[in-house]
């Protein structure tokens, strides 16, 4: 026999609970005709049914937790990537390289030091391209 799916198990748990409630209602309606021993016997049965329902819910929850493992692994991997990306931003050296290259060039332009301008342009272009083309910063 196949194992119960979590949905089937939840449904079964509900049926046990409803059965216990129905039994309890019957017991109360017919209390005048029941002896103390009969009353207690039925009372115990109802408790057993309710505890069984609760046990089935616990098992079904366990089955869902097991089924969720692949999704959990997938999301945890994404979380790791995101955290890695955040770390990358925090110490964003490439952007600093770019900014310093820009400053170097701007400084050269303002000061009129033509000798360092070509090198500044190359440094700036390299830094910008490296950052904008960087798809896998941690690779």
């Amino acid at each position, binding site marked *: 026999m196949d194992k119960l799916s979590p949905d089937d198990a939840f449904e079964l748990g509900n049926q046990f609970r409803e059965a216990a409630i129905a039994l309890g209602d019957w017991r109360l309606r017919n209390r005048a005709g*029941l002896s103390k021993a009969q009353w207690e016997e039925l009372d115990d049965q109802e408790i057993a049914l*309710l505890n069984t329902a609760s*046990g089935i819910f616990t098992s079904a929850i366990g089955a869902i937790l097991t*089924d969720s493992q692949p*999704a959990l692994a997938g999301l945890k991997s994404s979380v790791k990537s*995101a955290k890695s990306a955040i770390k990358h*931003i925090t110490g*964003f050296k490439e952007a600093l390289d770019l900014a310093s290259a820009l400053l170097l060039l701007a400084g050269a332009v303002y000061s009129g030091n033509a000798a360092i301008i070509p090198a500044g342009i190359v440094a700036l272009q390299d830094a910008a391209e490296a950052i*904008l083309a960087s798809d896998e910063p941690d690779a």
Partner: protein
Amino acid sequence: MTGSLLICRSFAWTLALVFFATAVSGCVSFKEIKAFASVSANAASHDALTRNYIEAPDRRKQYQPEKFHGELEAQKARREAQRASLDLLQQTVTDYMQALEGLATGDIRPYDKSLTNLSSDLNDATLLDRNEKEAVEALSTILARTVTATYRLHELKKIVEESNQPLLDIISATRKIVKKGIAPDLQVESTLVERYYDNFMLAPDNPPEPVAMALAKEVRAEALGRLENRLRSIQAYGVVLEKIAGGHQYLYDHRDMIGDDEFGRQLKQYTGELRAAYKSLLDISRE
């Protein structure tokens, strides 16, 4: 002549780059993603959920004869074994949302500070005047922010795309546990409470004691009220999870519009609904 031309071209190129930087940095805003992720991170974990579920067999001992206590202990042990997995479901969603928030926020303050230092050093060496120095600092910062924003936009799209399905699967599993497992289990407890006090009042041979009956009714109502509150609380948590899933699905469906005004307006609505659902959950939990 050649030197002057080169200077002019370089200056023009630099200005073009700066204008581009200013334009792009003005367009891309992650404010609404940050807000959505921040509320989601706070709302995704509902500590009382796991705690109440595991403690339930202990609470039920008072409503059952001692001969059932061994069974309740065994059930508590089974639930205790699920604690880590139950917490992990919630914690993983929280972790993801915190990561998303961090990515949307970035951290450019230390970065700006480094730029300022760099700018000062460089300006000292090249003898720029004060106005020129300020201009260079300001423009450099804008460009650096733009590059950061471009990188963050790329990463945000990638993370949202990769995470949507597992996130929805996890939220769906948690909602199912809450709606189909923990809520009906609380109804079992309500049934146990009702029976216990009904038995006290209606069992054969029980002498009619008006004061004891009135007290029993009062205690019964209080116990059922506490359970009703727990039930409403987990139902409210279910709504919170539904809103997180809805907002993230919108984010996923419109990830190519991130930074767009209309995207921001729509996501803000999702965040508003989530915030209202979370407030409702907190209000119920405080009752």
